């Protein structure tokens, strides 16, 4: 229900200029503080810095004052620019996602940063930095009210965990709908999420990588590594000299275990910072995910724009009986998600961690025709042989290299010992291949194609045939010898490094039949 309203010009929050300055404040704040607080003598550089800061503040103030927006009939009119004025007409139908991000400073000042994303997703249509919380909420409700709603409101029962009482989020009941919470994470779930993820290791590696780019930190790190490396080597030397190699091995293992535990603890802390208070709500055909501890993020996606789902189940997930349901949305910016502590504004996951029934209930919301228990998983053809040949390309030379090195005497292993190692590893490798081949399978249910693979880290890839963009049947000479083809498909919003759907080892007739079926489904407009 739309209300006729007078198009009134609204402006950004008065404190917007603070956020527009951004990085400049950080670099110039120190000398300003030094002058103001400590009253030190100011040399010319600091004076120039302060002048630049004052100039930039004035510019930011004027620019944010010049930004205004209006809600016209069927479109949003944005006026921005100080010297060159720009007027942008954004039809409501082009605004697909509205996401909000509130960092600590935003929350202290009671403001929020609003992003309006369009269908192409390359750049947000409008980034409003910053609006007051109430203004943002009313704008979002108005924009959502303008979206054509196709599905009637349905409330999920039983599958979602009881919604954590949303204290402080007392949203006034909107005109048309009340949100239903599809999925919510309690603290226990976030703990499990941290324990099953290796984000701690990732963050440490990235931090080291960026730190190494700075000369000073690199030298410090090298010095520290030198000292501790020396100490470690002395310790091990003492152990080995005293013929107590068991002790040395035990020490190494304990050190490894300690490192692992520390990294997992870091992962848990990062999971809390990132996913605290996670809640997935459904407003009509729009899904909104709210999460974050210090930086709160509110990201949305519309159901028809979801392109590809993936359920991940690593070895750790299986210990806890959980899985992860990720999703690719059309128009999402590729690969610009944040990996660290800060939650990204992208909508990438329907459930960072969930029980299997919950994940399947969420899938049912997105794909109502998918009936998981009734799926008929078809095994692939000649998977073992294909993977064997492909991996033997580098496995066999490695084995021969190892044997040659031991025969020549380059490594401290006698030839029989090296042979035993090779045979042991080879047996393990063959067993791994056989188990992998047994698990890999595909299934077709109406318009939906599923493909599962993996052994330690299991993945289920789910795509809907009408939403595919292109198809590809691929074969290597080995494939043709084995009589199989790979069926590959591409969707919007996926990753540039791998295809959305890549099913290897399908028998030729089956691959062509699937291709024909998908081809018919893709003839309609999306």
């Amino acid at each position, binding site marked *: 229900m739309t209300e006729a309203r007078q198009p009134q010009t609204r402006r950004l929050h008065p404190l917007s200029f603070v956020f527009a300055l951004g990085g400049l404040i950080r670099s110039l704040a120190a000398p300003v503080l030094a002058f103001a607080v400590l009253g030190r003598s100011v040399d010319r550089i600091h004076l120039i810095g302060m002048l630049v800061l004052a100039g930039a503040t004035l510019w930011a103030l004027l620019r944010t004052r010049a930004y205004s927006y209006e809600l016209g009939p069927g479109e949003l009119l944005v006026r921005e620019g100080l010297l060159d004025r720009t007027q942008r007409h954004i039809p409501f139908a082009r605004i697909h996602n509205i996401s909000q991000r509130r960092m600590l400073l935003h929350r202290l000042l009671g403001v929020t940063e609003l992003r309006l994303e369009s269908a192409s997703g390359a750049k947000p249509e409008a980034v409003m930095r910053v609006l007051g919380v109430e203004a943002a909420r009313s704008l979002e409700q108005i924009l959502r009210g303008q979206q054509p709603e196709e599905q009637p409101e349905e409330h999920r029962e039983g599958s979602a965990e009881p919604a954590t009482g949303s204290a402080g989020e007392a949203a006034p009941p909107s005109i048309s709908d009340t949100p239903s919470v599809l999925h919510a994470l309690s603290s226990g779930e976030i703990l499990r999420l941290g324990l099953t993820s290796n984000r701690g290791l990732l963050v440490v590696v990235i931090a080291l990588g960026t730190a190494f780019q700075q000369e000073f930190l690199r030298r410090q790190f090298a010095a520290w590594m030198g000292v501790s490396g020396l100490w470690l080597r002395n310790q091990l030397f003492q152990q080995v000299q005293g013929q107590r190699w068991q002790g040395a091995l035990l020490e190494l293992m304990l050190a490894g275990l300690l490192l692992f535990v520390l990294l997992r603890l870091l992962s848990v802390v990062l999971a809390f910072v990132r996913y605290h208070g996670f809640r997935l709500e459904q407003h009509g055909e729009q899904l909104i995910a709210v999460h974050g501890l210090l930086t709160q993020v509110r990201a949305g996606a519309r159901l028809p724009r979801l392109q590809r789902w993936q359920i991940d189940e690593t070895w750790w997930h299986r210990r806890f009986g959980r899985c992860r349901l990720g999703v690719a949305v059309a128009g999402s910016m590729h690969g610009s998600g944040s990996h660290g502590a800060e939650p990204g504004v992208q909508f990438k996951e329907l459930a960072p961690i969930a029980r299997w029934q919950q994940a399947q209930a969420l899938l049912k919301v997105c794909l109502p025709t998918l009936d998981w228990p009734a799926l008929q998983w078809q095994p692939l053809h000649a998977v073992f042989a294909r993977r064997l040949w492909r991996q033997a390309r580098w496995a066999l030379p490695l084995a021969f290299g190892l044997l040659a090195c031991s025969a020549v005497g380059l490594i401290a292993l006698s030839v029989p010992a090296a042979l035993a190692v090779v045979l042991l590893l080879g047996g393990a490798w063959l067993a791994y291949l056989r188990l992998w081949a047994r698990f890999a399978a595909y299934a077709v249910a109406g318009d939906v194609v599923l493909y599962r693979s993996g052994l330690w880290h299991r993945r289920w890839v789910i795509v809907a045939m009408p939403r595919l963009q292109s198809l590809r049947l691929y074969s290597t000479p080995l494939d043709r010898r084995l009589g199989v083809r790979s069926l590959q498909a*591409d969707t919007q919003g996926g990753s540039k490094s791998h295809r959305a759907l890549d099913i290897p080892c399908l028998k030729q007739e089956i691959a062509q039949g699937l291709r024909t079926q998908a081809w018919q489904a893709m003839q309609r407009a999306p």
Partner: protein
Amino acid sequence: MALQHPMNDPMQDVQRPAEALQADSEHARTEITALQTQPSQLLFWRAFYVLVGSALGLALGAVFSVLAQELRAWDLTTVLAVSSLPGLLLAGAGWVYAGLRFAHYRGELHRGEGVLLLDGVWWRSETWLPMARLQHLDVHQGPLDRHWAMATLTLHTAGTHDHQLRLRGLPLAQAHALRSALMPRATLTHD
């Protein structure tokens, strides 16, 4: 024919043998036009792959001659003769490969449905692009293409990994005709 339409019973389609599907597509009045790749494209590929092969071969030969100079094993003429061998061999291999690629390169227009492209000699790919997913089309001509009145038609979709498909070696008139035939008429509705 309506009862046999694949959409009525999707699961059955998967198990049907290839011949029945072929008959169905003929029944389903899909007109398939083969797109002839121009012979000039073969010339272009021959020149290109011979160049690539000889460059690689010369690089290898140069490495070999430097090594031989270090070792001072043979005299200069032998070294030069041997180091030019890889260049000649790889140039010949490039010539042969260009011929093979041209033989396997085939495009088809399925009227009202989309485009098919078969490409590759050993690593073969069969790419199917439906009309309903085309975002826009480009006709591109390199300097040699202009000399031979050929063009490359690039089809863009909204995908991420395989978002464009290039049809090479089309006659210029046919490229433009294809472009107007495939141009998305109705505005794609964004849902």
